[in-house]
């Protein structure tokens, strides 16, 4: 019984993790977007504190 429960949990675990990875894949930022993000984060705040 415990065996089947554990196997069920394992299947759920792998399924959920795979679903999360697939979801992340759809919203992955490109290198250009990452660069713009970093520069906008640095410059929006640093201008105020400069």
């Amino acid at each position, binding site marked *: 019984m415990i065996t089947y429960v554990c196997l069920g949990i394992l299947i759920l675990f792998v399924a959920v993790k795979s679903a999360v990875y697939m979801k992340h894949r759809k919203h992955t930022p490109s290198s250009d977007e990452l*660069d713009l993000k970093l520069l906008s984060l640095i410059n929006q*705040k640093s201008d105020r504190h400069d």
Partner: protein
Amino acid sequence: MTKKRAVTFKPYIKTRYAYEKLRVCRHCQQFTVLWEAECSQCGKSTLVPIRERVTAKVKRTMLNERLIALFIGLVAIYFGQTFLQMILSAAAAILLIALLWFVQRRMLPFEVPSEMETLFEQEQPRIIEDIKRNRKLAVAALKDDELLTYEMLREISTFVQNDKIRLQQVVLLQSFVLRKDMDLRVEPLLIDSFDTDLAAYIGEVAKVQRELIKNSSIRYILAYEAHILEMENGVEILSSVAGAAIRLKKYVEAYPEFIRRYARNIPKDRFLRLYRMIQQHPESYWGNLAEEVAVIRRERYEWDSDF
């Protein structure tokens, strides 16, 4: 006037993306945009590029997930009531863990950028604070080593993009003798308002590396032409920029009146280039420039065989 120094710049490594220059210490998590070999906070040689750090973190997380799956699989096998059950549990666990591993491998290139984005958002205050620390280091070096300060500010300006840091670089550049073989920049240093040091710098660059004078720098000079004319060597600055603009036909076509105003002050080789350009393209619109060039040629170069 302060005497200018002859210097050699440390090569500026241009990366495709600014974040490629951001490094983090694996030990104390301090960020840096400078090139130091050791972390300025903890003194250890544990600085790594941000992507490498994030990739390691993502791989560690994925390994933990596989270990959790392995643990659940082992529990399932341990509690098997028959040998057949244990074998089937082992086979199922191996298959599921292999599937998880396969999915993780395929998703790693997508997880790393996502994680980087999260890190930038979460660590924004820290990144800004550490860049400010880099900047303080640069300013502290000013008294003893202006060249080092300029090189540090040049790196920092990849990330911090405001007029203050641009002007700091321009002021430092004005204390160096500019040469043709130097790695100079103009466009990244342009600011929104007029500055005499910047105008003088552009005038000097126009003499030694005219290929750096492009549309935005010509427009800057044009926008503040009246202010530049009030400077001691204002006409010289404007003439050298006009001479540099003759490098490309598109600039002559775009700014014929500007070039016309200073055509009398440009060196012979630049005037010759302008003259030939107009001769070879009579169909282009030159405004009053063509007439002015003809007048100057008659006055100065009528008997010159080059014309």
